[in-house]
């Protein structure tokens, strides 16, 4: 599915994708300054906030699946 953006929307969306990447990388690195700066932007950008939320929800789901696998492995052993 291809989304069609106006040039301005495309620029805004690319900025959001960049911010999400910077946010995810900063979190992994423990870079609080960058993390906070992007969260400040997300406070006034609902789409960026939704993208950050989706990222964390995926992380939570992956952690839960990983924990279930570990428990299943413990039960098997």
């Amino acid at each position: 599915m291809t989304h069609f953006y106006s040039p301005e929307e495309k620029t805004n969306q690319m900025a959001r994708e960049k911010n999400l990447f910077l946010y995810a990388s900063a979190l992994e690195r423990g870079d609080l300054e960058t993390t906070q700066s992007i969260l400040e932007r997300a406070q006034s950008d609902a789409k960026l906030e939704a993208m950050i939320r989706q990222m964390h929800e995926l992380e939570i789901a992956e952690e839960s699946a990983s924990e279930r696998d570990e428990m299943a492995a413990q039960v098997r052993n």
Partner: protein
Amino acid sequence: MPTVLNDNQISELALKGSTPFAQSDAPSADELTDQQRILRRTIENEGEFLLGVLRSRVKKQNVASGREIGEVALDFFTELYIEAMKSAHKFNAELSPLPYLLGIAHNLILRKGHERGQNAKRAVREFFPADLPHQNEDGDAAQDAEIFDRVAAAHSEYSLNSATTPLEKFDAAREILNLVSGDDAQILELSIIHGLDGETLAGVLGVQPAAARKRFSRALQRLREAYSQHILNPSAPESGAVAR
């Protein structure tokens, strides 16, 4: 011996108010400022999500492991509430509260978790002296931004001429794709073609946008490492650029 809590129990505790909201010294609803009221309501409504974020960050930052993760996350959840109430005057009530609370959550994990994490890392190093450095140890936000902008520039160049010229003819794209291999190259190639848009990438890959963005993010991280190794520091040993 820490109490063992599973996901459901923790969620119930958070949602039913057995933790921060039941504290005897917590202010009553009448005593709260508007900002505190908004933040408190958001913590109540988003308790499960915030606790999930805390759990996953506690695990990823090595603040705790195994069965202690749940309990430590719950401690942070309580601290999140206390800190939100304390710092509520800094919150602009016109803006969205969830990112503000996520900011507090990360602050708590990274600052207060640092000490616990250092202890855990020290313990690990004692057992494994050859412990590898963290993959992003030398990185910074400027390098992240630079590598993203390089891929974005490759997209811009391609999008202007894509009707007449295939992707592999563009130097910028070739430079990027030659540095990585396999799945990473495929994700980056699709991103260059489709404009680094997670929604579109998700459609092409047949996955959720968050999953597509995560694959893209990982591919970019590995590209950054390869770029740093082969372009910025080409004389370094362990050269492993991929020929395509």
